[in-house]
Structure formats: structure tokens, C-alpha cells
């Protein structure tokens, strides 16, 4: 175990001393992120997410004012470029539109939504709280970014209503309990609160042009760089893993692998060390890029724990790809060529350049073989305010992919008898 660790550490050291590799691992993703940020206007204050006209279907079964307020929000001028709402009357039909990938999400506002928040006259006479009725957001899993934006808008709307509701109900109940007001006066106070609440979503300027909240309540803008930076980092992560894979064959050619094999170190320790080195190099690369873009571009990647776990899962999966091309190749040059091709193809397929939602369904399906697409979904979710708990799908997919690839590469290495003649 110690030797495996030492071999891995040695490989990280070698990777970060190779100037050519450093250019690809760190400089290139930085420059491309910067370049694409400039193209999209991120650095000129003319930021655009590059995402527009997100199709969403809204079914409003509420006959109160709040349901209508949410509909008005989606119809507002502020969101005109971002969302393209259509309206339906049947929840099931709306869900079908999502299932058929016609829209990014369906918002179903149930009957009684307004009443659940703004009690009818007399509701406070017995001091009982109204029963909660929840809005349903039915999200399209194949459009995680767009669905995430719709969710962020709805969350923002609900959080503003909730703030008013909790504050109002608490105040009225306290006044009732303390005997300062009579039940009749409580009704009057409730009516006043109702009036204020009805005004709340429209009067306040909803900062919901891609705004959402993080788990700790901090306001967060969805930044186009939050899509571009991970996209570039993941693309060049594929370079790193192929570089690491190439080093296995290069060590064989330069004689250090045979020298390791005649030391009291077994082949599993050596192979494990090489894999650990690739993994560790990838993790360090990703963390430097995340740290660097946070410092230089003030980019907020989101929930730290989520970012770390996602990085580990993404690098694990990418390392699996690095190992499989190494197991299939015969020379370091072959790994280099295949690795470069893989980096570009996975970058394009995985959405590093163009959002997957703008690609045909077939490409979207194929993209799921890339760690890039799953990891990018995860990073987008985090940038939109999601936490580790929202990452179960991409993390499971990445770990499964990595596990399968590792198993296959170990079998191939065994067949090739690469390390032991």
C-alpha cells in the first residue's frame, strides 16, 4: 500500500514537472475558459448564459392570486428571453410533454395553493394553521441545466412568499396568545397580511434572472463561467488521464517499469501506483483549476462538499477511460494520439463547447458515455445552488462508469501481460 502511494506521488511530481503537460493540464483550460468567457461577454458585464427560450409548460389549477402571480412571473418581461412558457390545463398532459422531451419542465400549481398560504376569513378563529399545498415541478432529466433554471425561478418565488407567510402567521398567533388582539381583530390582521402577500411577488423586484439560493442561504448568480470552466476542466482532464496512461507504456520503454519489476515490488502495487498517480494528478489538476477560476474569475462553483465529491467521481471515471486506452494501445504514441482524439470528442459530446440541450437527442444519448456530460450536469446543479444530495445521479453514473472501465482494463492488462513477462 505504501509503495502504491509512493509510486503515485512520484507520478504526480513527474506530471507537474513536465512543462508541456502543464500547458495542457492547466494553462490551456484557463485560457479557453477565459476566451469563451470573453466571447460570451462574461468579463464585459454583458453576461449571457447562452441558454434562452427554455420551454416550460405551466398548469395553473389555483383560482387564487398567488398561482396567477407565478404565471405572471413566467410571462414577465424580465424572463421573456430566458423562458418560453406554454399553458395547459391537464397535469398529466403537461407531464407527458416533459416525458416526450418537448419541454424542460412542467409546473403544476394545484388548486387551493393560494388558500394554503393566505387563509380565508375566519381561518384564525380556532388558531389552526392552514394545510400546505405544494407546487409540483416535473423536471426533464435530459435537460438538467434548463430544468435547474426553472426550479431556481420557482424556488425564488416560493421563498419570497414563505418569508411573508411565516412572519405574518407568527405575528398574528403571538398577538392572539398574548391576548392583545381578539379573534375578530386577528381576522382583520390576516386580511392585511393577505393584501401584503398578494403584492409581495410583484412589488419586489424578483432577482430571478437565473438566480437561486445556496444551501446556506447565500444569493448566487448563475454564471456562464460556471458552465464553461468545468466544461474546459473536464475536457483537459481527459488529456491528463491519457498522459498518465501513456506514462505506463513510456516507463516500460524507458526501462523504469522493468526496473520496478525486479525490485521487491509486486505488479499489482506497481499498476495500482500508476493508477493512483493518474487519479491524483487529475484531482490536483481539477482542484487547481477550481481554485484558480474562483480566485481569478470570482467564479462560485457551489457547495464545497458537493464539488469535492463530484471531482473525485469525475476523475475516477476519467481515469477508467485513461486505463482502457492504455490497455488497448501498444505504444506511448498510440495512447497520446487516441487520448488527444478522446479529449476532443468527449469535450464536444460532453457539452464542453455547446450545451447538450442544443444537440439532437441521439447525441444527447451518446454523450452519456462520457464522464464530461455527467460531471457537467453535476457542476451545473451545484452552480445553481444544488448540494451533494442533488448529485446522486451523476455521481452514481460516474462511479459505475469508472468501475466498469477499471474492471475491463484490468482484464485487458492481464491478457496483455503488460507488466510481467
Amino acid at each position, binding site marked *: 500500500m505504501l509503495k502504491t502511494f509512493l509510486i503515485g506521488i512520484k507520478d504526480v511530481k513527474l506530471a507537474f514537472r513536465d512543462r508541456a503537460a502543464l500547458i495542457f493540464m492547466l494553462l490551456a483550460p484557463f485560457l479557453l475558459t477565459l476566451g469563451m468567457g470573453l466571447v460570451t461577454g462574461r468579463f464585459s458585464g454583458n453576461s449571457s448564459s447562452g441558454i434562452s427560450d427554455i420551454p416550460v409548460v405551466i398548469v395553473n389549477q389555483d383560482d387564487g392570486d398567488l398561482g396567477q402571480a407565478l404565471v405572471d412571473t413566467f410571462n414577465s418581461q424580465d424572463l421573456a428571453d430566458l423562458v418560453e412558457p406554454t399553458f395547459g390545463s391537464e397535469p398529466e398532459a403537461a407531464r407527458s410533454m416533459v416525458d416526450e422531451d418537448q419541454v424542460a419542465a412542467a409546473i403544476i400549481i394545484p388548486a387551493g395553493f393560494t388558500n394554503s398560504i393566505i387563509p380565508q376569513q375566519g381561518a384564525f378563529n380556532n388558531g389552526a394553521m392552514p394545510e400546505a399545498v405544494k407546487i409540483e415541478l416535473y423536471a426533464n432529466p435530459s435537460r438538467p441545466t434548463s430544468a435547474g433554471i426553472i426550479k431556481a425561478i420557482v424556488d425564488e418565488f416560493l421563498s419570497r412568499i414563505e418569508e411573508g407567510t411565516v412572519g405574518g402567521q407568527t405575528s398574528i398567533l403571538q398577538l392572539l396568545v398574548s391576548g392583545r388582539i381578539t379573534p375578530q381583530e386577528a381576522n382583520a390582521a390576516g386580511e392585511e397580511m393577505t393584501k401584503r402577500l398578494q403584492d409581495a411577488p410583484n412589488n419586489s423586484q424578483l432577482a430571478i434572472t437565473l438566480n437561486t439560493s445556496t444551501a446556506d442561504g447565500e444569493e448566487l448568480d448563475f454564471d456562464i463561467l460556471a458552465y464553461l470552466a468545468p466544461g474546459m476542466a473536464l475536457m483537459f482532464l481527459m488529456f491528463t488521464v491519457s498522459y498518465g496512461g501513456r506514462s505506463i507504456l513510456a516507463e516500460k520503454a524507458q526501462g523504469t517499469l522493468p526496473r520496478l519489476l525486479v525490485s*521487491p*515490488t*509486486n505488479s499489482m502495487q506497481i499498476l495500482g501506483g500508476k493508477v493512483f498517480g493518474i487519479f491524483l494528478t487529475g484531482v490536483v489538476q481539477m482542484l487547481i483549476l477550481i481554485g484558480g477560476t474562483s480566485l481569478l474569475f470570482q467564479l462560485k462553483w457551489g457547495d464545497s462538499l458537493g464539488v469535492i465529491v463530484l471531482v473525485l467521481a469525475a476523475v475516477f471515471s476519467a481515469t477508467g477511460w485513461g486505463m482502457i486506452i492504455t490497455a488497448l494501445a501498444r505504444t506511448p504514441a498510440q495512447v497520446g494520439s487516441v487520448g488527444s482524439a478522446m479529449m476532443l470528442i468527449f469535450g464536444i459530446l460532453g457539452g464542453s463547447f455547446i450545451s447538450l440541450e442544443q444537440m439532437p437527442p441521439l447525441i444527447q444519448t451518446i454523450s452519456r458515455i462520457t464522464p464530461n456530460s455527467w460531471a457537467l450536469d453535476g457542476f451545473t446543479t451545484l452552480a445553481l445552488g444544488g448540494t451533494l444530495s442533488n448529485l446522486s445521479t451523476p455521481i452514481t453514473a460516474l462511479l459505475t462508469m469508472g468501475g466498469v472501465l477499471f474492471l475491463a482494463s484490468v482484464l485487458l492488462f492481464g491478457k496483455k501481460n503488460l507488466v510481467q513477462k
Partner: protein
Amino acid sequence: MPNILEVQDLVKKYGDFTAVKGISFTIKEGEIFSLLGPNGAGKTTTISMLSTLYAPTSGDATIAGHSVTKNPMDVRNAIGVVPQELALYEELSARENLIFWGQMYGLSGSALKERVEEVLGQIGLLDKAKDRVKTYSGGMKRRVNIGVGLLHKPKLLFMDEPTVGIDPQSRRAILDTVKDLNKQGMTVLYTTHYMEEAEELSDRVGIIDHGELIAIGTQKELTKQVGETETLVLHVGENEDPQALVTAFKNVPDILEANVVDHEISIITPSATDVLAPVVSKANERGIKIHSIDIREPNLEAVFLHLTGRALRD
């Protein structure tokens, strides 16, 4: 002295090609034993099997009592290997290389640190220890390559043609290092295709050709096989035809054997002075100009020539 290495009928086949054809020999503790043979004779394959890198097709060998086929890990702990090719991490410094390889041999902590400094001193690179290996000359790299093999103080050190492709000064330094190591009690198995190195270093020599060990013994024992002969070496011009001259020697008495390598004719004879006059005469008859003539005492080159009919450099 007991045997530290015992090789029994070691065979290595690659498909239809047999690289090593059932060789057997022993090395005693404290010896320098050289495997002498031309390129492609099977020296590196033999060392690769003995160092457990390649599994033998058949046969076995024991090193310090451990079988290379049954207890490879014990063998690896007992041996040090200096491969023919430089096997170093060029982006690491000499010290970092030695630390890494020391760790691979189970050294750690202050023992590792002390041993690394000791080896750096031994190979004369203490003042350059921080520099990356890629900035070193070929000779310096060779010295680090040797240093790695010494780190864990192996009982038996394999050195596979450690002087290939380096300048005479570095070559001299390496040969001196081998002698020093041996004086300190280290047993060395040294492979080379340079007769002079084998002659200078070895207690015993095994001559290997086409995967077979064709002779083994001390230098004296081996040269005896050639008999009490001398070698007369003629250097002819580049435009001359040495083979024609060799043909003319067939009728000259006391010429036991004559072989051509490039523009050099080696004549094995009981008395070089006796054949000198007829040899020069034959050359003059054919208008072949002789540039120079050397008379050599019996040596390993002559033994190889005698045994194979070819020169070591063929």
C-alpha cells in the same frame, strides 16, 4: 566460498526462437563473474531471467538459496540490478531518484537518507545531487544508474553492459567502482562484449554465444584452450581485399587460423615471429599494403575466435 548463484539448464524461448539454450553455471560469493559475448548472444536475456523479470521457459536458478521461479520476491531482495539502458526518471534529481528507488527496496526514514548520501558520495555526485538527471552527461547518468542498484546493499549485483556508449573517462570510473564494490565484498555478475573489461575485472569468465555458454573458467584456464598460441594482427588499407590475403595464408606453415574483421586480419599461430616473414611476403606478392602489425599474447578474444571462428565484434 559458497555459491551465491547456481544456474541449472536455464532456457528461454520466444516462439520458435531460443534465446538461451540451457545454460548452467555457478558464481561464488565475493567473485566478479563476467558473461562475455557479442551482441545478441543472450547475456541480457540471461540476466533478465536471473533477476526475475522474465520467467524461464525451463530450468531454474537459485540466488542466495532462493529459486528465481519459486521465490522471486526473496530473490529481488537479495539482488541489485544495473540495467543496460538508463532506467531513471530524468525529471527527478539524482537524490530524488535514489530516494524513490530506495523506498521501492523498503528503505525509509533516516536509514534511507543516510544510505542515499552514502551512495551519492560513492558515485561522486554529491555536489550535483539536486540537479535533474536530464541535465547530466551520459557518464553521470550511468553513475546514477549504478547507484540505484547499490542502495540496498545487495548480496549479488547484476551489471548489464554498464559502459555502453560512454566516454573513456566515465568508463574507467565505472570499472574502478566495480572493483571497489568487489573489494567491499559484493559479488558481481557483469555482462560485456568488451574483452578488455572482462579481462580486467573478472575472477572467472563465461563465454556466451547464440544462447549457449561455450566456455567457462578463469582467464588462464580459458586461454589454455587456445593452446600456447599468439595472435598476429595485420591492419590493411581500406581499399585492400583482406579476404584474398587470408586465402593465400592457407599454405603457410604454422598459421593455425586466420580471420578477417573489417580491415583487420587475426592470425593465430604458435610463433608470431616465425610466420611474420611469409605473411609479409604473401601480402607483397598480391600488392596488398599492410599499415601496421601487432603481436598479441593469448587473450579472451583469441579464445572466442578459436571457439566460434568469429571475432567478438562480429
